[in-house]
Structure formats: C-alpha cells, structure tokens
C-alpha cells in the first residue's frame, strides 16, 4: 500500500526467527472465537504487537475472522488509532484539545515541527521520530499536555519538550 516504509522501520517489522507475535495474535483471535465482532479488539492487539497494520497483516486477519478484506480495511482506516504505516521509534503526541489549545498548543506544535523538521502526523525520514497530534488526552488540568513515548508530559513547553526529545534520540546514538 504505502511505499514510505523506511529501511529502519522495515527492519524492525521483519524480526528474525523466534517471532511469536503471530502466535499471540492467533491466541487473541481464538479467545474471541474468531468472531467478526471482535475485529477492533484484534486490530488493537495486532497494532500493539507489530506497531502498525500492514496490508498483509490485515488480509491475514480478514481471512481468520472470515471477513471481507474491504470491511477490515474500511474499519482500520476509520479509526485514528490504527496506523497503516510504520511509526517512528519514538513518538511525541501533542494534545490539541480545547484546554491545551487555549493554552497555546497549536503554537507549541508549530515550534516542534520547526525544531524536529517533521510535520505533524509524519515520521522522520530515518524512521526514528514521529510527531503526532491527539484530540484531547483528558489531561486538561496540565494543559498544554503531550505524550512522549507513552508518558504524559504536563505543562509542556518548547524548551522542556525539545530537550527531552533530543535526549531520547541522542541516547541511542
């Protein structure tokens, strides 16, 4: 589907032997008795395991759940959570909910775009960093809020976020 798969991301998704992700996914589907109703739960699991939903993975799920491929694709593209392309190794999600918006989240996002050279919703060319946005994380008391690799950062501003992103990316070099 997508040709934007970067080398690093592709490497990550093609793990060597001993990959038991398929088994875990199978177990999830079995737990739901391979019912089509469980499609969203299964997609959640698949994305958790593989990081994104490749066409092959979606076809596979369609087959196992006895669903038409177009239905699976339609569901996968309806929900924001599901990503059909690999995400960066590190992600920073900026909350654009109302409370954060009123407290300058849009400006913060623009600054991070400039700093990282990655547009909102995109992944850097080397596949290391994704800059994402969210529709309210429900952490309005900490506005503006961000999530850095799964961890909520409250009262986010340019300097504290930039420093943390830099250290995340730097640590592995």
């Amino acid at each position: 589907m997508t040709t934007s798969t970067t080398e690093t991301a592709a490497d990550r998704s093609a793990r060597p032997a001993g990959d038991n992700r398929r088994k875990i996914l199978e177990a999830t589907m079995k737990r739901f008795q391979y019912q089509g109703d469980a499609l969203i739960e299964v997609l959640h699991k698949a994305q958790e395991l593989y990081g994104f939903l490749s066409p092959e993975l979606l076809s596979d799920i369609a087959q196992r759940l006895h669903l038409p491929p177009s239905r699976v694709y339609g569901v996968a593209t309806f929900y924001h959570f599901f990503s059909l392309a690999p995400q960066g190794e590190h992600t920073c999600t900026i909350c654009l909910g109302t409370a954060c918006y009123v407290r300058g989240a849009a400006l913060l996002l623009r600054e991070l775009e400039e700093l990282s050279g990655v547009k909102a919703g995109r992944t850097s060319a080397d596949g290391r960093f994704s800059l994402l946005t969210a529709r309210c994380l429900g952490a309005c008391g900490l506005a503006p809020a961000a999530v850095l690799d799964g961890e909520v950062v409250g009262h986010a501003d340019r300097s504290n976020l930039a420093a943390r992103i830099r250290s995340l990316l730097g640590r592995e070099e």
Partner: protein
Amino acid sequence: MDLHELEAIAERELAQRPRLRILYCSATGCQASGALEIKRRLESLLAETGRQVEVDVGAVGCLGLCGRGPIVRIEPSGETFEHVKPDDAAEIIAALDGHSCDVARCDQNHPFFTRQMLIVRRHCGLINPDRIEDYIAVGGYRSLYHVIHEMTPAEVINAITRSGLRGRGGAGYPTGLKWATVAKSPGERKFVICNADEGDPGAFMDRSILESDPHLVLEGMAIAAYAVGAEQGFIYVRGEYPLAIERLQKAIAQARRHGLLGAQIFESGFNFRVDIRVGAGAFVCGEETALIASIEGRRGQPRPRPPYPAESGLWGMPTLINNVETFANVTAIIEKGPEWYSSIGTEKSKGTKIFALTGKIRNTGLIEVPMGITLREIVEEMGGGTPDGSPVKAVQTGGPSGGCIPASLFDTPVDYESLAAVGSIMGSGGMVVMDAHTNMVDVARFYMEFCKDESCGKCIPCRVGTVQLFNMLTKLRNGQAKPSDLSKIEELCELMRETSLCGLGQSAPNPVLSTLHYFRHEYEQLIGAEGNHGS
C-alpha cells in the same frame, strides 16, 4: 459472597488500616507531574526509619485540583499539599508527626472545595482505586446487595425515575425512562453499555471517575442490569485512557473473584458479566448508535433513530446506554433514596454535575457542584478567575457540541434547560474559560476543524458542511470574506442542525452560532474593508 462476608471484608480492612496515612493522587494528571517519584521517596524514607508498617503510603484517586498536582494528603489531620516535589517527602513525614512544614498547602476553605457537593466523587481521594477492599470498606456493593435481595426490578426503575436523574452524557434524557423502556422491550438478550468514550476536548470527568473509583461505576451498571434484565455489559472506553482501562480491568477481575460480578451474584439468580471494549479514536463513537456499531466491530457510523437502542441496540437487542457519570450516581440514589437525591438541584435538573474547569482559569481541575449553581459562582468564586486577574470573556461548555457563553450571562444557573436557552448545552461537563486574548472566530474555527476531522462521512450535510464551514471561517480569519458570507455561514449552520443524521452533525454548528450570536462584532471586524464583492 453474602452480606456478612461483605461486612467482614470492610471490618478487616478498617481494622488493618494504620492510623497514619500518606495518600497521594495517582490519577493521570498527578502521575504526569511526578506523583510516583514522590511515592518512592516517601516509602524509602519511611523504610530507612523502620516505619513502613506504621505509616501507610497509599494511592488514591483524583482529588480534583489537577492544575496544582502532584497532590498529597495526610491522615488523620487531613492536611493536603499541592505542587509537591520529591524533595518534600521528609517535610511531609514531619507534618504527619505534627511538626511544622513548609510545603504549600491547599486551602481547603477555599470556595473551590467548600462550594462542592460530592456524590459521584465522594470516594475520590479517599480510596485506593486498585483495591476492592477499599471500596467495600466505604460501603461499596451494599446497594447492589440491597437491590438484588430487597427490591424488584420495577422498584429500582421507580426509584431512579423518582430521583429525577438525567443522562450526564450531554442530552439529559431522563434515566429512569430509558431504563423503563429497555426493561419493557422484548428481546431474548439485553445489554447494558457504559459509554466511557469521553471525547469532548476539555472534558475529563469520566476519566477521573474511572481512574479513582471504578467499582462505583461497575456497581451502578450491575444495578441497571438487574433493573432492565440484562446479563451482559460492556464498558466502551477511549483508547486514550490507558490508566482507566487498566484500573477497570483490575476492578472487574476483583469483583468477579469476589462474586460481585459473574454468575449468581450475592447467591441470587442474577448474573452479570462486564467486558471492556477499547475505542480506537473516533469522537463520533460517543453517539450511541455509532458506539454500538463499534462494539460490533464495524465502522463507527451512526444510523437514524428510531429505532432507539433501548428497543433495538447491540446485535438488534434492547440495549441500555448510559454515560459513566450517570451510572456513578446510581448507588447514592439507592443508598440514600430518590427523595434525598431529588431534593438537590433545580426543578428539572436534579443532583450534582461534575465539571472540568480548564483554560484561562486560576484553579484548574474537577468540581462537583449541585445543579443550579451559577456560572459566576463556578468561574469567579471556585475557579478564582483568570490567572493574571484580567476579566473572563466567556466560558465554553459542552465541547464541540456546545456554545460560548459570554461573561454578561454568568448569572445563568447551570442546568440542562438554562444552558440550552443561552445557546449552549450541558454536555459532558467541559468548561473552558476564555479571556480577552481568545479570539472567538478562532474558537469557532477550532471546533469546526475538530468536527470536520471527526465527521464519519456518512451523511452529506455533516461530511461536506463541516468542511465548507471550516473553509469559510478560515477565509474569514484571513480577512478574505465578504459581508454576504456571514449569512451563508448561518444558512449552512441551519442546514447542518436540521438535516444531519446524528448529534455530531446536528450540534457541530453550535460553537459557530453561539459565537456569532454573542460576539458578532469579532466576525464583522474580520470582514474585508472592500465591502460588497466586485462592485
């Protein structure tokens, strides 16, 4: 499980509990501000002095003042500290022993606290959400026992009806009536769904309830299931709320282990099983028919009602859908009686409502207030006005479906009808405060962008109307609009309100209409000086 065992658990729990306790808020807000590090420091300090048994360091749910986290509270004195840093740990332990301490205290005589009335949040900040024993110790699951053994389903519905409880998800449909419809509707199976897809940006009360007191919601659902004759329940939670999901999972497992969910609850013939369904990021799934489609594993697109889910819902069966806060009100009504409940609030809006007070406001956080309180009391007294003391311009209630209420109308009482009369809605309880720096056209445009991105695409007025409105507002913002564009905007708003398929599209124009109504001059200022087009 029977009543004696329940009481025994409670007694054991209370007897074991150390007198000295340090309770820290473990909800998302305070965790993000470093609550867990403070907990570790407290524990290691106590361990160093061998006091880890004498003093209990416990997690509790949200204390409400999220903007000042991390919050820590000590018992028995009840002193509450704000903006706590890990280095404050020693001082807090000193305070526990009655010594003076320099850590900033929350002023609990502030109207932010004193004007609140806690029904739904009555356990928040007192119990550990991860422990069913804590919930049982404060009287939990007694209402369920009472209902199963001493009330008929009809009596339960009657009690809810008489309480005057209305849906807290936004529209305010009478809860008792909904329960009665589901109970009456024929169907071989029935379902109870808890709508925890709290999607309104600026609202996080449901998240806080689930993170602070998950059993309260489960017990409310079980009572509802008993009343309407359902044996299966689902909680549909936003995927953005991982902590709430984790706590719910734990709570369900604990309740099941204690025989409070599952088969033959309290040794009766009543069975009730609850499963979690995790949303995948679609605001429209807050709409009940879309939510049902999503649980069925389909695209979350709404369908026209009638038939209502109460008659034909999940898999075509009668289905009760209530929001988290609605279910969280149920045990209090059973416990204290419908008359007590209906004595709170206004004539048509009973009980309390939780609001998330955010934006340009000094005291950010969650408040539970009796219906009928005025916006002024909330914003000025409880919220303390804007952080820099400048005047508040407006407050936005109801999220993308609501409207902006100008400061001149702050004497409006907060109830379903009054908020609707000034062009907004109660909504799920978001209250975003705006000051002079907030441009209202920007606010309208912000919400329209949200609705455009969240439109499911099924019906034409919403799918295309949101985009057209967004483009028109953008043009306006860039000074490229003509005077005739304002009436075009209004006309399109009317179309969407009257012809969209679901509530998302029908209410999407509200932020535009309310700002146009109260802040029309801000729109007019943006219209190009060139005047009428072309001539």
